[in-house]
């Protein structure tokens, strides 16, 4: 949250809005407050943009190429091409500084090429495209690269592969698993995977933060200060969004589709939802203040409570029920806005 509170930024924005900055000097003032990029930052941005777009386009190009299944090119030549691409990208990684952005980009490229190679295997031996085996093998095969890269985007890509695997697996075997876990087994699995990833990620970032702050304290004053590693907020928010969406969907199923969901399953869903929301509230309100997580929690709560009220009220009187539910939503969101504003002020203070 701390990166969102730039005191100069607030000061300058207020000054601009109140007409205290000379006309024509707006950009100069913003530049001095560090709100606009300078030449060096532009250069760095341009450099990174070219690198990442170039890498992603090249990786996608090879995947598209193998998906085309070009007959004019022999199978051995295709395999050789895919393997050569992996070897070259890893060789470039080895040659470059391991911690450099270019090195990490090479590992991302190699990860994409592994997918292309596996797709080619599936195509050649007729194991089918878009099967869950392809995605799980892809995820397993690139695990080492993902660990080496230490790149949030690559970790999320790895997790995406796992999510796709689960979806494809349950669309294939829903019959057998449906008998044991009910129709919602895939949602439960996806929730469990994403929430586990979230917990692991948060724990590791907390540990890293603690380690860097303790080493920071132990450093002699003459040595340059090491900056604590920033928490990959955006990646954590993606995981929060995914976990929150899955558990909210499960709750909606438990409330609205009662004929398909067993009573015991409904109770379990409610308990898990309550734990998720409770722990989330405690952690993101008191430990690692994050308004995004709290706003997501408020939205989830509004949706769930609305479904609950709507279920019981609309059956009694349709017209009046709609009005009541509408008013309940407005009241909840107003209350949520007031509370979030209060927390934002606390965090900013």
């Amino acid at each position, binding site marked *: 949250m701390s990166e969102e509170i730039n005191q100069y930024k607030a*000061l300058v*924005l207020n000054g601009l809005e109140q007409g205290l900055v000379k006309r024509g000097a707006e950009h100069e003032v913003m530049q001095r407050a560090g709100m606009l990029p300078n030449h060096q930052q*532009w*250069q760095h941005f341009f450099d990174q943009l*070219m*690198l990442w777009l170039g890498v*992603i386009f090249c990786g996608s190009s090879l995947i598209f*190429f193998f998906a085309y299944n070009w007959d004019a090119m022999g199978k051995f030549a295709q395999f050789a091409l895919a393997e050569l691409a992996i070897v070259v990208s890893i060789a470039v990684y080895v040659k470059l500084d391991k911690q450099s952005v270019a090195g990490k980009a090479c590992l991302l490229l190699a990860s994409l090429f592994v997918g292309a190679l596996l797709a080619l295997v599936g195509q050649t031996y007729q194991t089918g495209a878009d099967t869950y085996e392809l995605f799980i093998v892809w995820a397993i095969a690139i695990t080492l690269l993902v660990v080496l890269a230490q790149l949030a985007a690559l970790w999320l890509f790895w997790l995406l592969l796992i999510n796709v695997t689960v979806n494809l697996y349950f669309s294939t075997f829903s019959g057998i698993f449906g008998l044991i876990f009910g129709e919602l087994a895939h949602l439960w699995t996806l929730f469990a995977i994403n929430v586990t990833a979230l917990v692991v990620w948060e724990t590791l970032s907390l540990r890293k933060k603690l380690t860097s702050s303790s080493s920071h304290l132990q450093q002699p004053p003459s040595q340059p200060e090491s900056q604590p590693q920033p928490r990959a907020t955006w990646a954590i928010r993606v995981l929060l969004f995914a976990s929150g969406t899955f558990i909210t969907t499960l709750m909606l199923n438990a409330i609205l589709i009662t004929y398909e969901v067993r009573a015991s399953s409904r109770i379990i869903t409610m308990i898990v939802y309550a734990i998720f929301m409770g722990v989330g509230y405690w952690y993101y309100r008191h430990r690692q203040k994050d308004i995004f997580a709290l706003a997501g929690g408020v939205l989830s709560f509004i949706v769930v409570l609305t479904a609950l009220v709507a279920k019981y009220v609309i059956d009694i009187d349709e017209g009046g029920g709609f009005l009541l539910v509408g008013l309940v939503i407005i009241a909840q969101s*107003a209350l949520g806005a007031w509370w*979030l504003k209060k927390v934002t002020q606390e965090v900013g203070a």
Partner: protein
Amino acid sequence: MNMTNTETQTQFWQQLKQDNLLVGDSMPIHQMAHQLWYVRVMLGFAGWLGALFLLGFVAIGLEFIMKNAAAAILTGSLFCAAAYALFRMVKNKENDFVEQFGLAVSLAGQGMLCVGWYQQFEDSKQLLFVVVFAIEVLLVWVMANSIHRFLSTVAALFAMSLFLKEYAIHGIMLGAIAAGVVCIWLSNKVLLKPLLWAPIAYGFVCALLWFEIGRMTPLFRSTWSGDYYWWLRYAWWSGMLIETVVWLVATRLLLKRQNISLQSKQAYCAFAASIAIGVVSFFVSGIASAALVLILGFAIGNRVLFGLGVCGLIGFLSHYYYQLQATLLYKSAVLAILGIFLLMIRFAFQRYFKSGNEIGKQEKLGEQS
């Protein structure tokens, strides 16, 4: 806020004053920070959900209103007027309940207005879309609520696109919206009057990305009509051509902002990249719009725009795989050429500009001007 922060801020402001960049002697009055974007999204969604239920109440409880055009238009107008009064009542005050209530009432009112005008102009869709556009523009202007202004901006642009679709020229809206995005974000309007212009600016950005998504869905696919043959074929291309021009204008403005001479190598590189992106967008739809949002986000230090641009780039590239107008081999070649071209630009950039000589020259030029 602790003392150190206040002191640092005062010092910073005094420095600006000494450098003759300010008007008057006073420090800015500390106002409540504007709500974070995700809180606004949450409130917007809740307002929209509340409006749906209010609309449901009118449709079921007061059925006759929805069945009669005049009654629907009158009630819808009254709802909007009530919302206007509510927003005016709490202007410069903080009353979340009234604001959320006003938002839901206004959205429900707009729903009724759409139903009423639809019944009125059942045979003339063009008129319906023009009326909806006019209503939304009026609401953007008068409703003192940022979420409302954002939603009305998107609705107005959507209505205009549907109006143009009736003549098969909706493709040019792509260029028009992109021009709007650049004009608003690169002017000082958003900074000087954020309450009015920030929601409009975000509305234009979302409309631009939504429009790009819309062209990939049946929403903006016109039915075949011999009358509009030329436009059916070339309106999208015209839109993309306008967008490329917008890219060049944006590049020029950004170079000027950085005090970089238009005759410098850097400027040539930037213009070449802009044209390249414009050309690529003819093959991979959506790329130019997403990249424009990304660049603007970086240029003005706005992380929301930057994030939207990144998401747009990933989304449009992923969708490219499923587009049927070209074979996968062709698409693969396009991506390979583009990828290698970008990496070569990076290589050239590192080789020629990272030495610092060029930057030093540009900075000197900036100081002189």
